[in-house]
């Protein structure tokens, strides 16, 4: 199957769509980016190809449809030739998958709620965010990237910590991480965001800030709904 039949349904500012783009670019796979305007409505194309979750990213490869960013990354790694994204050793792969699962299932909600909620509730989530960041920082073990000397699966998965975190702090006025906290994560964030491949598909910081600022109320509502679940 020729790589030119690859399309990615994404959205500006989505760290999940960014994950898929980085994976494609690391593998050297040309693709067409189709942008959704999620704050307005979801396109028929998106609803057709992801009827279950109705979310971005969705990878279209010829007649194939792949949903869920973590599934997409592993698919890109296995379906195309190019530098490996996942570690090769089974135990290291298990560790990478474990921390990816931790990020998406354990970190996402406290992170959201620590910036978009208020009062005592917010304090609790702030504490949890710091605990989660400490656990993640420990996985760096002084390496340049989570994957070692070069970018790999876990670096891509944790991208929102490298770029989105400070933007959201600025938009909401909530400081999650003090300037002297988590120095290894800070160093890694700089490495990640200055990587030549990553830079090609990282949303512009000012535009991202404007995006969150414009949609503050919307995110507060989403956080409120999350809290009730």
């Amino acid at each position: 199957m020729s790589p030119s039949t690859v399309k990615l349904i994404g959205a500006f500012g989505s760290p999940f769509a960014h994950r898929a783009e980085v994976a494609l670019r690391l593998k050297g796979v040309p693709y067409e980016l189709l942008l959704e305007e999620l704050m307005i409505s979801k396109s028929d194309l998106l609803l057709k190809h992801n009827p279950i979750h109705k979310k971005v990213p969705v990878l279209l490869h010829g007649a194939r449809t792949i949903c869920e960013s973590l599934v997409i990354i592993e698919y890109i790694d296995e379906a195309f030739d190019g530098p490996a994204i996942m570690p090769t050793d089974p135990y290291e792969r298990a560790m990478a998958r474990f921390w990816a699962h931790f990020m998406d299932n354990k970190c996402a909600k406290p992170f959201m709620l620590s910036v978009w909620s208020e009062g005592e509730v917010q304090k609790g989530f702030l504490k949890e965010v710091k605990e989660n960041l400490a656990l993640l920082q420990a996985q760096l073990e002084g390496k340049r990237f989570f994957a070692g000397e070069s970018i790999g699966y876990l670096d891509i998965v944790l991208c929102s910590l490298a770029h989105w975190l400070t933007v959201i702090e600025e938009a909401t006025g909530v400081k999650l991480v003090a300037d002297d906290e988590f120095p290894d994560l800070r160093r890694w964030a700089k490495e990640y965001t200055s990587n030549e491949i990553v830079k090609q598909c990282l949303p512009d910081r000012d535009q991202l800030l404007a995006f969150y600022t414009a949609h503050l109320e919307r995110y507060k509502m989403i956080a409120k709904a999350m809290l009730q679940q």
Partner: protein
Amino acid sequence: MAGEINKGLVLLDYWVSPFGQRCRIALAEKGLSYESSEQELFGAKSELLLRANPVHKKVPVLLHDGRPVAESLVIVQYIDEAFPCTGPALLPADPYARARARFWAAYSDQVFEVGKRVWQLKGEERKQAREEFVRVLKNLDGELGEKPFFGGEAFGFVDLALVPFMPWLPSYERYGEFSVAEVPPRLAAWTRRCGERESVAKSLYPAEKVNEFLAQHKDDYGIE
């Protein structure tokens, strides 16, 4: 506890845990011997569990020569990749088939997640959770289609990810507002078909046992 922790395979488990059962089925399908270490989940957790899974403090955890792997689907993929020449492959070889397997195995968690809400919520919210629960089963039934197993002719990753939740369905009926009659017929037939496999039959407990367990732990599960 008998045996060495630092040699071979040890599964930290809890008898009725569907997540533990996923791993048991996988190990049985591969024909791998392992030591089962039943853990205390209600009350003090063992030092071993806390050391093996400090992040979540949950079962299942697989120890392989002393090194821990946690998260049921991560464990199953690890088993498949660390023992490639032992027993059948749990995931298919083709990248697209693997992607579909990973998607649907992860989705099967929704049976448990949404099921919990059917118990825990009240009134209008419970009604919505119930509707979502029925939708989840419909989606899974749609993916299964007319195939004998989710991956086609062979039992595999998605089947072992989903089947442990099936004995819980009568409890969702009993404690929530779900009716077992609403389980799509193809999915019901698939459940029986999986149950005929030794790996599944030996790993799962009947619905009555699950029900008994839940009756004793209502508070822990938010059931009234």
